[in-house]
Structure formats: C-alpha cells, structure tokens
C-alpha cells in the first residue's frame, strides 16, 4: 500500500485555530502518513519558540461558550482576552487536551515537515531565530509540489 500523504496550510494564529492543523498532522503521522504543514500569515505564530502569545478572544466570537452571558461591550475591556485565554487553557488541561507545545513536539518527532512561508516571514519581519529549529522555508511552488501528490489537502 502506497504511503498516504496530507498537506495542510495553517493560516491562523489563535488558540482555537492552532489546534486543528497540529491534531490532524500528529494523527496522520501516527497512521503512517507523510505530512507537511505550510505555515503562512498568522499561522507562523505556531512556529515561534515561545507559544505563550497564542490567545483566544471572546470578541467577535458569539459562538464561544461563556459561563455567564457577556455583552460585547464587556469583551472589549482590557484583560478580557487574557482571561478568556487562561480559562480556555485551564479547561483544556482539566480535560486532558494536549498543549500546543506537546502536539507540535509530537508532530516533529513523527517527522511531520514544517514549512514557513518565506513571503509572510519577510512581511511580518520575523527573525528566523524566533522560530523553532528543524523547519524549512519556502513559497507557494514548494507547497504545490507536495500538495499535488497528496490524498488530503486542507486549508485551515
């Protein structure tokens, strides 16, 4: 049986949107798939050595479950984003959900290839020293080369 392949484009850098690419990539790798993730725009945040800056905001997110109903005007107040992030992380820990750091390590251990989009690295003036080791840098053509051979290709 030929090895299955999956390519993911990770474009988001919020706590909730950071999970799907890393969950799917680590799982596919565990199933023996060959996996690449192309990190672009805000998805580049997932490649930083320190992931503490990855947060979730209740603002403009009416679907976020809240312990008490909260008017939008309250979500705007300083500290609300930090509080929502802390509450979400606490809940995840209690429920046995892996941290982003752990999932990312599991991906790298399982040889998931991480590619940082060079154009957006330059656009946001990231230093490569801010990112973890073991990643590659490339552009759309680099992604398409692998994406064209995949069984599953996702934009997240």
């Amino acid at each position, binding site marked *: 049986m030929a090895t299955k392949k999956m390519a993911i484009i990770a474009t988001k850098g919020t706590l909730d949107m950071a999970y799907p690419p890393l*969950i799917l990539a*680590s*799982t596919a*790798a*565990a*199933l*023996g798939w060959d996996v690449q993730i192309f990190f672009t725009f805000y998805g580049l945040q997932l490649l930083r050595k320190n992931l503490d800056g990855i947060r979730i905001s209740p603002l403009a997110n009416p679907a976020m479950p809240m312990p008490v109903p909260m008017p939008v005007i309250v979500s705007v107040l300083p500290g609300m984003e930090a509080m929502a992030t802390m509450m979400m992380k606490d809940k995840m820990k209690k*429920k*046995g*959900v*892996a941290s982003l750091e752990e*999932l990312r390590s*599991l991906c790298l*251990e*399982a040889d998931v290839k991480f590619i940082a989009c060079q154009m957006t690295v330059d656009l946001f003036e990231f230093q490569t020293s801010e990112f973890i080791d073991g990643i590659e840098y490339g552009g759309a053509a680099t992604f398409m080369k692998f994406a064209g051979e995949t069984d599953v290709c996702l934009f997240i």
Partner: protein
Amino acid sequence: MNHDKEFDASGLACPLPIVKTKKALSDMAPGQVLRVVATDPGSVADMAAFAEQTGNQLLEQSTQDKKFVFFLKKA
C-alpha cells in the same frame, strides 16, 4: 488476555490516545500485544480506525467501569 506491554491513556483527550499508542507500539516486535486503557469515549472509534489503517490488529475491545480497554497486536 496476555500482553507484552501496557499503555495507560487514561485522562488523555484526542488525539493523544492514538498518537501515544503509536509511540508505545514503536519499540515492540511484530506479533507482540499491547494493552491500552483509555477514558476518552472517542478512542473506541479512533482505535478501530487506527488499527484498520496501520495493520496493527485490534484483537479485543471492552469497556470496564467507564474505561475502554484495547488489545492491539503489532503488525
């Protein structure tokens, strides 16, 4: 059932029971049996899908006191 190794995935949520089961299998020899205990209800369907896709045989799955027990034979 006799087994060569045990992995306790209790308290872990998706995808950790599967990803760590794969890791637990990695240093085992073909034909050896791994016993996995999980509390994530999603792991029942996921473990079957894992077995089917990787060729590791799911010999038995049972539920004991809200715990899900799996026996996997390494391919």
